[in-house]
């Protein structure tokens, strides 16, 4: 798995926990991957939308203008499950070398 795949996994996992608006998605991912800029994460999020793995809708923000909320689709959930399996396999493979 490349770093891009790890980011995708985290992104889908984050959205699996509930619908989120852009800043809510980008901030924790940037905190987890500090050398990655938000524009790169946004590009990934946009790519997921184009692939049909996420969708979006507008909803009122906290007192301000409407916000764009992202949600995971059923195709996205299937992809998340597949990526979780890949991650577990990779984690086990690495652990077999004694890497903690």
């Amino acid at each position, binding site marked *: 798995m490349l770093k891009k795949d790890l980011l995708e996994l985290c992104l889908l996992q984050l959205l699996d926990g509930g619908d989120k*608006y852009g800043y809510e998605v980008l901030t924790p991912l940037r905190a987890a*991957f500090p050398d990655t*800029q938000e524009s*790169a994460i946004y590009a990934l999020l946009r790519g997921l939308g184009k692939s049909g793995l996420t969708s979006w809708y507008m909803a009122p923000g906290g007192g301000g*203008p409407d916000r764009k909320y992202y949600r995971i689709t059923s195709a996205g959930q299937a992809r998340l499950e597949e990526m979780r399996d890949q991650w577990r396999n990779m984690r086990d493979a690495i652990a077999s070398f004694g890497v903690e």
Partner: protein
Amino acid sequence: MMRAKKARPLTREQYLKKFSRAVRWRLMPQESEEAISDYRELIFQEERDESKLVEELGEPVQAAHLLTDVKAYRQWLKIFAVLAFGLFLLAKWAWMGHSSFYFSFADQWWYPVWVMAVGLALSLYWFRRYGQKNGPLSKRLVLALVVVLAFGAGTMAWNWYVFDSSFLDSYVERYPLIIPWQVILQRELIINGGMICALIALAGLILAKCYDRRWLALYTLAVTVAAVCGFIIFFCRSIDIGYAVRSSAQSYLFARLIPIGAAGLIGTGVALC
């Protein structure tokens, strides 16, 4: 993934402006408007520290680059290069009054028409296939079309008057050494008009890519007027005003200019649809 570079402070408005410019040039209108709207939301978050905008989001141009479909963008750059080169030729020909290359099988006055034909065919094909409409028809576009059309029609009318055999006869016979003001005005109209219309066409092309493909109508109309001006300039430079030419110049010229203008108007109509 992109790594953080040394941050250059930008205000939220400056960032959004630079990002919007970059993304409009690289993406299709609807996609770019969507990305700009998303970035506006991200940038104007209350929690966002303005001084860390570039550090957190990256340089605006890099951010736009990350959203770019590289293959489609390169294809657009090639199309743009060809069309812009055509406009450069039209402007150069209007200014110089001659071409630095010569094809023996055709008179030089047809060169601007070839450029126009290639420009119309290529731009209409590309924008009808990949371009996007964006909202209602712009009033500025309508105004710009009216201005270019009025200029084109006025130039044609003035040339009709100047190439009239009775006018040519009277001034050649009476004042063979003096250039009458009508001819000076005609020359200024076609030289400056050809150059200005090439520039307007370039603006139309950029606006069609960045905002709404219907701006291509401005390109098609302006390139037609520039080609007509180029045709007349080359024609004037090539002919020797003898009696035979004076009597047939108007009919020869307009039998060609009218179909060229009609083709440009049809192209303009297609671009607006």
